[in-house]
């Protein structure tokens, strides 16, 4: 069955720390992967997406993610987080419908 899993459920960082959120997927076919962010009180917004080509994709607000096919992974990274990055982050695979991971709550301390 198709599935997406996120390893970290709750991450607490200080400002300027580096961030890496794990995402693994299980899907037999061609996969298209997304990271969405949900800031407190707001709707899900697309951070970045991978369809094909360069496995290192850059998104908004300094985020990037690397698609590693051999590891079935699509980890989200940011070199230096800010307090405003406090939000919930969702990895998702698009098979025609979105299959979401559990979500990771990121809390950045000022």
């Amino acid at each position: 069955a198709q599935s997406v899993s996120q390893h970290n459920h709750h991450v607490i960082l200080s400002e300027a720390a580096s961030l890496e959120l794990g995402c693994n997927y299980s899907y037999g076919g061609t996969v298209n992967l997304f990271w969405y962010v949900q800031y407190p009180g707001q709707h899900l917004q697309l951070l970045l997406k991978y369809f094909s080509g360069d496995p290192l994709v850059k998104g908004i607000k300094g985020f990037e993610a690397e698609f590693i096919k051999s590891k079935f992974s699509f980890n989200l990274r940011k070199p230096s987080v800010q307090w405003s990055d406090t939000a919930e982050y969702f990895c998702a695979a698009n098979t025609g419908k979105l299959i979401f991971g559990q979500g990771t709550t990121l809390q950045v301390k000022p």
Partner: protein
Amino acid sequence: EPEVTQTPSHQVTQMGQEVILRCVPISNHLYFYWYRQILGQKVEFLVSFYNNEISEKSEIFDDQFSVERPDGSNFTLKIRSTKLEDSAMYFCASSGRSDYPRLREQYFGPGTRLTVT
């Protein structure tokens, strides 16, 4: 920038009552979706809709659920007889034209929090 909107933001209803959740997708989008998130759980796909028909539905989307596009702008989710376990955040999403379903970028609304008492 165009947005998906949803009303109401919060709906409280008694068990057994019917509820209708409303969504206005982005105006030139053709594909519409409903997802839900029970507190503490994953966001789950419910149904996708295109050309006035359901394209795909999940196991959750049983006979108690229905979707409709009553006019050119609204997209609604109806739950006929709500149960306690229907309490969740319901998200509407829409996407534009693409030949490949996997490539369609979905834009989400802010959600409706449904509380069934």
